[in-house]
Structures are given as structure tokens and as C-alpha cells.
């Protein structure tokens, strides 16, 4: 167990963490703002990567390809949204259905289960080989800029009339309806924005690792939730402002990758990572619950002493 190998992995942890952080911000929009656990994202991540690679191979500019990936993600969100609102399918199930359908669609987009994209052949924005470079092409810097711009845009959006109506929908459906908000529209819109961001993250991830794979999004929702929860548990007390809460989510993803790296360094196999991820999420979800229970008992005891 050479500590240097862990240090060597840190730049990659930061880059990957920030890219997954964008996906986690997408999960935050559905999970925390809309109050829906949207499982579509497991499929959307690959849809984003696949769309990006196919557009790039067809000769599209890298920015055009990324906008294309974002739009493909929005369409996936739209489908889940329509399953949920127009067809009355429970949100979780609607997400699962779209996710399953996307598996076939992603294979159709790529034509095969795995598509490489070579950074020497194409003009990509981020690539793993530049992770130690000091310069403007460093993927850590570029991903961090993406995170900052996305947070700024979302901060603006959720402050608008439309964004506020989306927050109201997640906070209280009855209240939203009574205030004349068409909650079906706001739910669909939220799912679209969320999945658009997840697909954008997928396009960055495909560039960074140099390929898109039909299984690249498996368990993404859990990683997204892990990032949201880790961010809240660690930064929740100091980051109250909305923009800072989004930043906490992105940092949560970086911390998740750090834990991941440490666990690998301790000698566990990558095959075990899904198990470990699930356990990490379970523990972080349980902490606030246990904390509440402990403090509750404590408060009751204290109250009894005072009475």
C-alpha cells in the first residue's frame, strides 16, 4: 500500500468528481427541488455520451456535439415527464421505464455497446491524458468552469418566476395548484433540465475517459444521490445559500470519488465498487435519520428533567 499511488490518483479524482458533480446537480434538481427520485439518469448519462460521440464522429464541432447531448437528455426527461404526468405512472416507475428503454436506444445510437473517441483524432474539450498538464486544457480547470457556469445559470433560473413555480411544485403541490401553477408543466420542465444536465455530464465523461459505453450510467442515480447527501451532511451547516448548496453537491461528488479511490487503494476490487457505493449511500442517508432520532431522545430526556 504505497501512499504515493493514492496521491497520484488525486488529479483524476478531482476531474472525475467534478464531471460527476454536474450529473449530481441534475439529480439534486429532481431529488431535492422537485421531490422526485428520477431513475432515468442511469440511461441518460450514456445517452449524453453516445450522442456526443456520434455527433463528433459525424464531424460536428465539440460545442455543437455537447449541445446535442444536452438536448438528447432533455428529450429523455420529457419522456419520463410525460409517462408521469400524461399517463399517470408513478414517478419512480416512469423513470425506470425510460431508463430501460434508453438501454436499447443508446445501443441504437452507438450501433455497438462501446464507442471510443480518440483525443488525438478529434478536438475534444477534456481528456484524461491532460489531467497533470498545467494549462488551459487541464480537465480539472475546465470541469470546474463548467460547474461554476451551471451553478450560476441555475441560480438565476430558480430565481425567475418560472423557476420559483418549479420550487413551489416540489415544496407543496396543493399550494402550487391553488396559485395557478400547472404542476404537470413544471414537473416535466424540471425533469428535462435535470436530464439535460446529466447528459451534458455524460458527454464530458465520454470525452474524459475516451469512450462511451452502454453500461457507463449503471448506478449513476446512486452516485448522484451519494453526492447530494455527502454534500449536505458535510457542508449543510455552512452552505445555506442556494448557489452554495449546489456547490456542496458538486463537492460531494468529488468527495465520493476520493472515498472511492481510498477504498480501491486499500485493496478492494473495482468489481466491488457498486456494493461499496450502495453502502456509502445507505450510511449517509442513515446518518441524518439516526442523528434526528438521537437528538429527539436527548431532547425528550432533557424536557423531562426540566418539567
Amino acid at each position, binding site marked *: 500500500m504505497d501512499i504515493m499511488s493514492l496521491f497520484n490518483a488525486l488529479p483524476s479524482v478531482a476531474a472525475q468528481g467534478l464531471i460527476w458533480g454536474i450529473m449530481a446537480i441534475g439529480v439534486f434538481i429532481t431529488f431535492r427541488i422537485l421531490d422526485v427520485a428520477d431513475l432515468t439518469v442511469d440511461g441518460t448519462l450514456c445517452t449524453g455520451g453516445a450522442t456526443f460521440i456520434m455527433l463528433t464522429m459525424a464531424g460536428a464541432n465539440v460545442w455543437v456535439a455537447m449541445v446535442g447531448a444536452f438536448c438528447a437528455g432533455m428529450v429523455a426527461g420529457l419522456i419520463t415527464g410525460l409517462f408521469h404526468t400524461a399517463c399517470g405512472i408513478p414517478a419512480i416507475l416512469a423513470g425506470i421505464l425510460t431508463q430501460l428503454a434508453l438501454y436499447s436506444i443508446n445501443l441504437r445510437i452507438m450501433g455497438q455497446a462501446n464507442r471510443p473517441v480518440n483525443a488525438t483524432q478529434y478536438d475534444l474539450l477534456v481528456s484524461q491524458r491532460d489531467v497533470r498538464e498545467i494549462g488551459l486544457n487541464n480537465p480539472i480547470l475546465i470541469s470546474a468552469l463548467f460547474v461554476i457556469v451551471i451553478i450560476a445559470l441555475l441560480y438565476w433560473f430558480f430565481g425567475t418566476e418560472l423557476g420559483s413555480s418549479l420550487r413551489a411544485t416540489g415544496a*407543496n403541490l396543493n*399550494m402550487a395548484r391553488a396559485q395557478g401553477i400547472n404542476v404537470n408543466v413544471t414537473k416535466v420542465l424540471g425533469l428535462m433540465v435535470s436530464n439535460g444536465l446529466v447528459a451534458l455530464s455524460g458527454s464530458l465523461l465520454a470525452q474524459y475517459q475516451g469512450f462511451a459505453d452502454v453500461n457507463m450510467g449503471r448506478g449513476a442515480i446512486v452516485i448522484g444521490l451519494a453526492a447530494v447527501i455527502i454534500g449536505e451532511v458535510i457542508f449543510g451547516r455552512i452552505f445555506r445559500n442556494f448557489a452554495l448548496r449546489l456547490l456542496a453537491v458538486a463537492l460531494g461528488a468529488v468527495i465520493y470519488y476520493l472515498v472511492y479511490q481510498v477504498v480501491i487503494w486499500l485493496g478492494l476490487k473495482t468489481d466491488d465498487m457498486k456494493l461499496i457505493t450502495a453502502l456509502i449511500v445507505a450510511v449517509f442517508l442513515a446518518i441524518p435519520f439516526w442523528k434526528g432520532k438521537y437528538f429527539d431522545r436527548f431532547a425528550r430526556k432533557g424536557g423531562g428533567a426540566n418539567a
Partner: protein
Amino acid sequence: MLELKNISKTFNAGTVNEKAALNGLSLRLEEGDFVTVIGGNGAGKSTMLNAVAGTFPVDGGQILIDGTDVTRLPEHKRAKYIGRVFQDPMTGTAATMQIEENLALAARRGKSRTLRPGITKKEREEYVERLKILDLGLETRMTTKVGLLSGGQRQALTLLMATLIKPKLLLLDEHTAALDPKTAAKVLDATERIVTRDHLTTLMITHNMKDAITHGNRLIMMKDGQIIFDISGEEKKKLTVEDLLDKFKVAGEDDLSDKMVLS
């Protein structure tokens, strides 16, 4: 201002739990009418209000608000005409949002929501003034999350939100029932002041017979999804709680809840 024509609604039709909640109910409210609604449990009071608000589609009949047929309009579209305060203080406000954000949402009721700012500086100043009518000191806590307020404070805020832009119709569904007597009196007092000030057409359900008599210019009593007693003007002013209890007995209403008799 409001016209209900022969409204009927049956819940769980065709099952053992079938319940005809509204049976050919008709009601006409003139502009500025403040109508209190009383009746035993299951009389159809809340069902009537929810039918007007569009919470569910009615089985038959027609609902007109200021001459517009809203019978087929979904809830969020009817919200343009209607301000509502619910029985449960948790229902009317968004707990995770600030007081001023809740008010800003209400200020856009019935308007299209665009990418313009969700709240402006000018609005904030206006809301501070508007909150003063509640006399709860909320005007100094504009950025407090509504979830941190008491039930009474939330209910008062909901009332202000419902009337922030003048609704054609104000629906109050036992909006003081879940509050302690002192807070209930305060919220009811604010209701009276706002309704009088803005000359609002109002339907107020209450379990409290004294409140039903003191407030409003008209009183209706419901039973089995129909209006069985309708009194207004001078006659209503002379009404006593005893009169109402007699009416209940004549109507064969035995299940007077303790709450109604005691209050």
C-alpha cells in the same frame, strides 16, 4: 359573482363506499356577498368548496364565476379567479420557501410565469406594507422560511396570499378550526378586515355557529349535499345560536358534533 347550477358529485360510485356528496346543489352569490356555511359532518360543505375550486370534476351541473363557465377548467386555471385558505395550515404555503417568496408566487396567480425575476425590490417593499394588516410582526421576517412559522402565522399568511391580488371569489374552508382560540380570533379578525376592505365575494365554512352568525351578510346550512336553510340581511342579524340549533333539529340532524354545540 358565483353561480352553481344543479351540481352533483358522487364519490366511489358503484362501490360499497358510494357517497353522494352533492345532490343537485344550486347557489347564487352576488358580488360582495360574504356567506358563512354550516352543517354537520359529511353535509358536503368542503365538497362544495372543492367543486368550485376545481379539485375534482363534478358529475353534473354548471359552475359560473362572474359569468364565465369554469365547469371544465382545471384547478390551476380556475386559480385565476379564486383565492383559497385551507383547513390545514400546512396546505396553503410552501414550507421550504421564504415568506416573501410565497407572497411573490401568490402575486402571480393567474398570470403566465416567465423568465422575469421571481420577486422584485418594489414588490418586497409592498409586501412589508401588506403584511402589517395581519398584526403578527411577519413584516420583519420577510426572508424566514415559512416552515418555521406557527400554524396561525401560516394561516394568516395564506389568507394574505389568497387576497394579494383581488380574487373574484374567496374560499375559506374552516380556516381557523386547527388554531388555538386566541390565534383563531386573530385570523378571523384579519379575514373580516380584508373582506370588508376589498369588498370580496366570500364563502366561509365554519364549525363555530357564533362565528357563522357574527360574520358575513348571509348564512347557509347544508345537509346531505343540499342547502336546507338560507338566510340573509336583517333576518340573519337577528339570528341566535339557539335558532340555529332548532333548525338543525328540524332538519333531523342528530350528529351535531360537540365542537359545534360547545362553541
